[in-house]
């Protein structure tokens, strides 16, 4: 208890100290007044995508990691250059970041008619870099663990330390989620579901680390969750058996629900698309909301900076305490969302594999979504 009190006192002191210097640390657009904090800009800058990886500002110096821009213009073909060439409103080879309009924040160029158009843009953006970092980390971890096993025979003793932890983790996902969800022929789908679980989990956790290699909002980006949901969608429908398709086009319901108006088949057909859509939105919204909540709580310090030392000091303490709480909650959410995505994917795949007239696992679906 005594230690806790000392820690709390230190936190209060430090936060007061930082609050006094707050305006040095915040990204302040030049057109705004010194104390007017652009909260929306900060939050959307952090959770959105960008062409460069902004780390921090020291004084008025931007500390950023430039990333390669790869664009294909319908006028001038392929262009590859570093994002530092187009930062702060600069124009490079006719490309520039649109300051406003429907393409705000994206690279655009002017076509022959003088209109702003989007080139084909496959730049390595912040989120792309985040994907790469997470993928490399995932490969290192899993292949490292797999390598430990490749050098040993099943007769050797069980691993300890990190390999043992990963084994426990992997087997938990494998036995509790995949085997339970998919059913008897789970073996074929285990690698995809395990990859999806660990990709989401690692991305979620890395996204919580505020410093450079982490912090990219990967799983809170709809493009990423869309790809993951598409993978599940294709696996469900490609490996779905006869019984699955029969259930969609000729479900076991009273005939007047099928003839003359195919009401139930329509609903079932619609369900094929809503299931992965729900997967996509659930993961995206949860991670986005978590990042937003933490950012808003952190911004409280800077918003209240102009309200005098008493309010600012107390809000700082509250902000730090809530941020700590939110971060802990987010660690839990990082696991839960990976778990839920994998489990629902497993259940959808399992439903498409069912052959008999067994009970549908609709109950489980309803409980989570």
């Amino acid at each position, binding site marked *: 208890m005594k230690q806790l009190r000392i820690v709390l006192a230190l936190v209060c002191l430090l936060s007061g100290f930082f609050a006094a210097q707050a305006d040095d640390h915040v990204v302040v657009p030049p057109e705004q007044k010194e104390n007017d904090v652009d909260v929306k800009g900060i939050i959307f800058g952090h959770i959105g*995508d960008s062409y460069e990886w902004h780390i921090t500002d020291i004084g008025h110096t931007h500390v950023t990691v430039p990333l390669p821009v790869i664009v294909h213009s319908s006028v001038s073909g392929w262009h590859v250059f570093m994002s530092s060439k187009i930062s702060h409103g600069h124009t490079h080879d006719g490309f520039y970041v649109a300051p406003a309009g429907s393409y705000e924040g994206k690279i655009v160029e002017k076509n022959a008619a003088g209109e702003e158009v989007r080139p*084909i843009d*496959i730049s390595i953006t912040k989120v792309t870099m985040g994907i*790469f970092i997470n993928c490399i980390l995932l490969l290192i971890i*899993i292949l490292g663990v797999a390598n430990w*096993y490749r050098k040993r025979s099943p007769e050797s003793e069980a691993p300890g330390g990190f390999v043992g932890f990963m084994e426990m983790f992997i087997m938990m996902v494998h036995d509790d989620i995949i085997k339970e969800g998919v059913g008897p022929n789970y073996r074929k789908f285990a690698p995809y579901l395990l990859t999806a679980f660990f990709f989401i989990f690692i991305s979620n956790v890395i996204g919580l680390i505020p410093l450079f290699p982490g912090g990219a909002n990967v799983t809170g980006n709809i*493009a990423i969750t869309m790809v993951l949901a598409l993978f599940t969608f294709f696996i469900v429908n490609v490996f779905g058996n006869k019984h699955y398709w029969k259930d969609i086009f000729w479900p076991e319901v009273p005939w007047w629900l099928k003839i003359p108006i195919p009401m139930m088949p329509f609903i079932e057909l619609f369900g094929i698309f809503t299931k992965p859509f729900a997967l996509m939105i659930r993961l995206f919204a949860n991670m986005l909301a978590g990042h937003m909540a933490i950012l808003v709580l952190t911004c409280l310090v800077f918003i209240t900076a102009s309200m005098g030392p008493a309010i600012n000091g107390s809000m700082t303490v509250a902000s730090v305490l809530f941020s700590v709480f939110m971060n802990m909650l987010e660690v839990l959410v990082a696991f839960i969302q990976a778990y839920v995505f994998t489990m629902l994917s497993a259940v959808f795949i399992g439903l498409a594999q069912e052959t008999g007239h067994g009970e549908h696992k609709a109950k489980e679906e309803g409980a989570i979504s």
Partner: protein
Amino acid sequence: MSLLLPESGLVFWMLLSFGIVFFILAKFGFPAIVNMVENRKKYIDESLENAKEANEQLSKLKAESSAIIASANKEQGRILKEAMQERDKIINEARKKAEFTAQKELEDAKKQIQMEKDEAIRDIRRQVAVLSVDIAEKIIRKNLDEEKKQMDMIDRMLEEVVSKSKN
């Protein structure tokens, strides 16, 4: 709203990297780990089964060995008993034989003694006869005249010799 619109470039990179990662991990990563863990589980189950069997065999062997020891003990007792009986029998026989031999030897000795005694008596008799002849000769040489005296003397002497020898 840009948050809700998937960016095509990101979709492209995500498809590419997730696809590659999925391919690599599905080929080299997860199956290796899962198979290994399952093999180990199988191996542990087998080992447990083997250990159980070995234990059963061991207890069976123990029972067998104790049975063998018990029977060996019994056998040992029986052999000892038999040996004792045998020993007693041999000793008895030996004693009887020894007694018999001793008896026989004794009898032989007695016979021998008897024979030797008889021989000795015969010898003495012979000697007596020789002596008496000698004496008679002497007496005859000395007193041939007194016949009656001579005869008396011979008789007396003979009597003495006989009585002496009888003793």
